[in-house]
């Protein structure tokens, strides 16, 4: 049921760019919230034909959104930080998923109910620092929806 179905969006970025590079945004989803919970994570997979930066995100679900990185360090502590942007190298798959990069939706305007849909508007910047926005559809999945693997450190460190 966590089938990698969903939307495969082929989005042409328009005006303001030297070219119109395609951005593939797939498998966008938002974790449902428990009643009263004010924040949740959003996840998706991105691939761009030219180097882009994800510099911001908006969603009707949330008054604020941040790009975050989380990792579990060798001391067994989960650390999460907001980052000002996320680089999307050309032709490289960048996954925002549990255990790594993600979008944090904050000050939720409404509960995120599993089965409903919302949108994520991605604010992208190209090498010439021109900005463009792309809106993708996202499924709200159950609170216990997960990537298959437990969180791990993105840093390539030897395990003990």
């Amino acid at each position, binding site marked *: 049921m966590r089938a990698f179905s969903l939307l495969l969006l082929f989005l042409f970025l328009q005006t303001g760019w030297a070219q119109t590079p395609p951005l593939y945004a797939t498998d966008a989803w938002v974790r449902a919230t428990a009643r009263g919970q004010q924040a949740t994570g959003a996840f998706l997979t991105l691939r761009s034909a030219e180097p882009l930066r994800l510099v911001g995100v908006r969603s009707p679900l949330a008054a604020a959104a941040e790009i975050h990185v989380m990792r579990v360090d060798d001391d067994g502590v989960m650390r999460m930080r907001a980052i000002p942007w996320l680089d999307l190298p050309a032709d490289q798959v960048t996954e925002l998923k549990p*255990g790594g990069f993600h979008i944090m939706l904050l000050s939720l305007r409404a509960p995120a109910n599993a089965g409903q849909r919302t949108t994520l508007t991605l604010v992208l910047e190209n090498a010439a620092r021109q900005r463009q926005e792309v809106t993708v559809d996202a499924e709200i999945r159950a609170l216990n929806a997960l990537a298959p693997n437990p*969180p791990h450190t993105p840093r390539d460190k030897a395990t003990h």
Partner: protein
Amino acid sequence: MKRVLAIGFLALLAACDTAEDAAEPNAAPVAVPSHAKEMQARYGEGYAMTDHLGQTRTLADWRGKVALVFFGYTHCPDACPSALYRFSQVMEILGPQAEQVQVLFVTLDPARDKPEILRDYTAAFNPNFLGLYVSPEKTPELARAFHVFYQVTPGQTPEHYSVDHGVGTYVYDTTGRLRLEIDHTATPDEVADSVRQLLAAKKD
């Protein structure tokens, strides 16, 4: 200035914990798998918390069961839901034996994690999971009692802080003794194996 609310692993407190030691000799040995480390300290064993239904609790309330204790907060994007999801799978693997296991989710962020949020959050994974909390003022003390590291990290606005925290799970045996700290990389099968061993050692 960096706002460090609590730093665990205070050697001083270890002394207090051992003082609580109510002689319970001959804990049956448990194999220590690669995903866990053996614990001999008495962290948090007598520490009073409130459950999400409003009842005052200590870990002694679950004697006779194996208790899996995880510390986190509901704004946690994935370490906490991943852990709780893993425990829900452990319960499924254990089948009828799951009745002898209690999963406890202790919040390190009681300012935002109100009891009803804890209740709904834990219930989303398994209706028998229980959320526990103390007041925000007492949370540093709770973290010291359990020797759990956490640190509040300011966000871009005051209400959007995040909480860095340890992702290990404490496993208490049926006599209420802390026996293992299980790594976050442990699979549900591995956790279930450790639980089964501790249940098998239970003296009736």
